[in-house]
């Protein structure tokens, strides 16, 4: 600019133009400079405006919680009548443990709402709508965001941190149904009304420890018409700890141990003979779980592998009242069970999986006046089950699964099961726990 101005001056001088012209040029220059400055400011403002405009739009509904819906439907082919389903050797939990109905059916639909409440809390509500048109609260809890030093509190109804599989939502399971051990020890899936305190250690190796205090609303704390205990305070307690980390350039692992202690009162179960027995005493459950996931360079897009297993051991002792004789006597049992499952994604979208289940009923002891013959379902028997599945996930939001199982839950017959199932999620992008 300066050089141009000087040049203009020189030319003007050379041409002998009057002084007025020079002054005019300088004025023009001044105006031009001012215009450039203003333009520059406008460009900066415009840039800012574009940045703002390119961000999310503002609206009242922008504060709506994240909404997602899970739909699933299933075709079942069962060689045995599902109405006669039982797991021999174990106390029936009155939970939803059966293989479901034969033929085509709508599975459980889920409606989930979640959002940060404020800077202290996050809230989650997951309602399950059964195919029989009833609505239940699967989970409904608040959790803290602002506690320091790795502490977290969760309160409300939530899937108990007992074992590994119990905390995973059914739509994220690798098989259509829960392992046999989860069915007999936790009534399929234990969601407790209570409070959970958890602490994560400030170490590079993942380590957490936590405790849950609950109302004992479900098996093993309660089952049947008596319902949960009518008392102040706590009826169910669970402590747990996990350790986890990475191995090499593609493997992640986690292992945990949990201990669930409850004192059931008038917990009832129906014997296949049609009588109702009731138990009052102590129930203690230990669960050891482990999970290992592998993907080349931690990139699971093309191939990945998952190995998962849990071991359960339960000790119960107390008084049992027989529905047949209406007599009460001492009862004690030590029972265990485990499963091991692996799932392999061999090409994008396709996975295969296999699970082996085994339960060990042990021998229950009955003291006089009780007679073991009055409790046929508790007669010693070790159920087993083989399950094979293949599933196809065309996107992150849909999955179609075919599953075959050979289920020896009943002591006298084998149930050959075939399931064809779809599971889809609508709405907010989900995130799955490790």
């Amino acid at each position, binding site marked *: 600019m300066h050089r141009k101005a000087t040049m203009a001056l020189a030319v003007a001088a050379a041409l002998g133009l009057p002084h007025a012209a020079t002054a005019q040029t300088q004025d023009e220059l001044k105006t031009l400079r001012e215009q450039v400055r203003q333009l520059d400011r406008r460009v900066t403002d415009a840039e800012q405006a574009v940045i703002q405009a390119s961000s999310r739009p503002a609206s009242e509904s922008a504060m709506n919680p994240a909404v997602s819906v899970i739909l699933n439907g299933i075709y079942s082919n069962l060689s045995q009548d599902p109405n006669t389903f039982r797991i021999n050797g174990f106390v029936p939990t009155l939970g939803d443990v059966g293989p479901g109905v034969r033929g085509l059916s709508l599975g459980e639909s889920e409606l989930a709402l979640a959002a940060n409440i404020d800077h202290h809390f996050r809230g989650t509500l997951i309602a399950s709508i059964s195919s029989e048109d009833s609505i239940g609260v699967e989970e409904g809890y608040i959790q803290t965001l602002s506690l320091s030093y790795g502490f977290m509190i969760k309160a409300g109804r939530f899937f108990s941190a007992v074992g590994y599989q119990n905390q995973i939502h059914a739509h994220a399971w690798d098989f259509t149904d829960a392992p046999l051990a989860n069915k007999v020890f936790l009534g399929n899936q234990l969601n407790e009304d209570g409070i959970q305190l958890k602490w994560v250690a400030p170490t590079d190796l993942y380590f957490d420890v936590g405790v849950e205090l609950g109302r004992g609303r479900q098996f093993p704390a309660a089952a049947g018409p008596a319902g949960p205990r009518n008392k102040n305070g706590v009826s169910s307690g669970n402590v747990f700890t996990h350790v*986890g980390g990475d191995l090499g350039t593609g493997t992640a692992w986690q292992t945990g141990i949990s201990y669930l202690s409850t004192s059931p009162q008038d917990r009832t179960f129906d014997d296949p003979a049609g009588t109702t027995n009731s138990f009052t005493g102590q129930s203690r459950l230990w669960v050891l779980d482990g999970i290992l996931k592998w993907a080349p360079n*931690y990139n699971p897009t093309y191939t990945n592998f998952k190995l998962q297993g849990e071991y359960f051991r339960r000790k119960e002792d107390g008084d049992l009242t027989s529905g047949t004789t209406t007599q009460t006597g001492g009862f004690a049992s030590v029972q265990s069970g485990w499963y091991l499952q692996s799932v392999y994604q061999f090409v994008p979208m396709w996975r295969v999986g296999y699970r082996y289940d085994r339960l060990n009923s042990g021998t229950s002891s009955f003291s006089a006046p009780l007679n073991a013959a009055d409790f046929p379902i508790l007669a010693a028997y070790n159920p087993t089950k083989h399950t094979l599945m293949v599933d196809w996930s065309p*996107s992150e939001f849909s999955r179609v699964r075919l599953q075959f199982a050979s289920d020896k839950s009943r002591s006298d017959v084998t149930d050959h099961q075939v399931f064809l199932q779809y599971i889809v999620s609508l709405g907010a992008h989900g995130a799955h726990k490790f």
Partner: protein
Amino acid sequence: MKAILRFVVALSAVVVALPATAALNVFACEPEWGALAQELGGEKVSIYFATTALQDPHRVEARPSLIARIRSADLLICSGSELEIGWIPLLLTQSGNPRVQLGSPGYFEASQYVVKLEIPKVIDRALGDLHPGGNPHVHTDPRNIARIAQALEERMVLIDPANAESYRSRAKSFLERWQAALARWEQQAAPLKGMPIVVYHKDFSYFINWAGMREAGSLEPKPGLPPTPAHLADLLDRMKIQPAKVIVYSPYNSPQAAEFLSSRANIPTVMMPFTVGGTDKAKDLFGLFDDTIGRLLATAK
């Protein structure tokens, strides 16, 4: 029950002494943000790289080791715009660390400081895995790096005022070197102007926009969905009418689909570094753009 109650008392009595760490703990969701934090922070920061160039930042498992690292982080740097939606929210709620929660100064989303491209006009999952906030891969435009560097400098000064001077002077030096490099890259990339390229995923949109290139298609039929034979055949037909110069993909993509198309369309494939660490030469942010431009120029000849 009694044992459990005793345990609760013991647990609540645990007094946690935070380890006296001198450096600011940075959790970098992607390698490019770790590299940027390193440029600005130097010795004052200790950086954990949550992912590598070999991982798709949209598909990351919320591993226990990541929770453990976020637990101790003072500053979390992510791309944002829903890129990490499948894992970061979960890690945050499980970390018990209020310093890096959404809304805290320790939570930094890089994409908020730049103009986003490809903001969808229609949002529907039938269109693939869309990001309602716009394309999240903002770091592939070198001008964005400069803008984000300034925002990150302010954030680091806010969180760690004791080292403000260091951050300020390092940022100044970085931006000077970056502007010089930017001028050089603009000259170098001039021959790329108007060049039609096929991408694997829409992760180079910002680079394409900066270099004035033209996207002639993507191997993914829809964002986030793997390439299908039918779509590749379609793409091949389209390329007969409108030929492209090169097919690019990222280190976390399988080269198979790109090579399939390359052999039929008779154009080269190029693995771009995509982020820091993606290739041997992409050791830092400068190397990232040097190598990206270098690789494309090699095919333009």
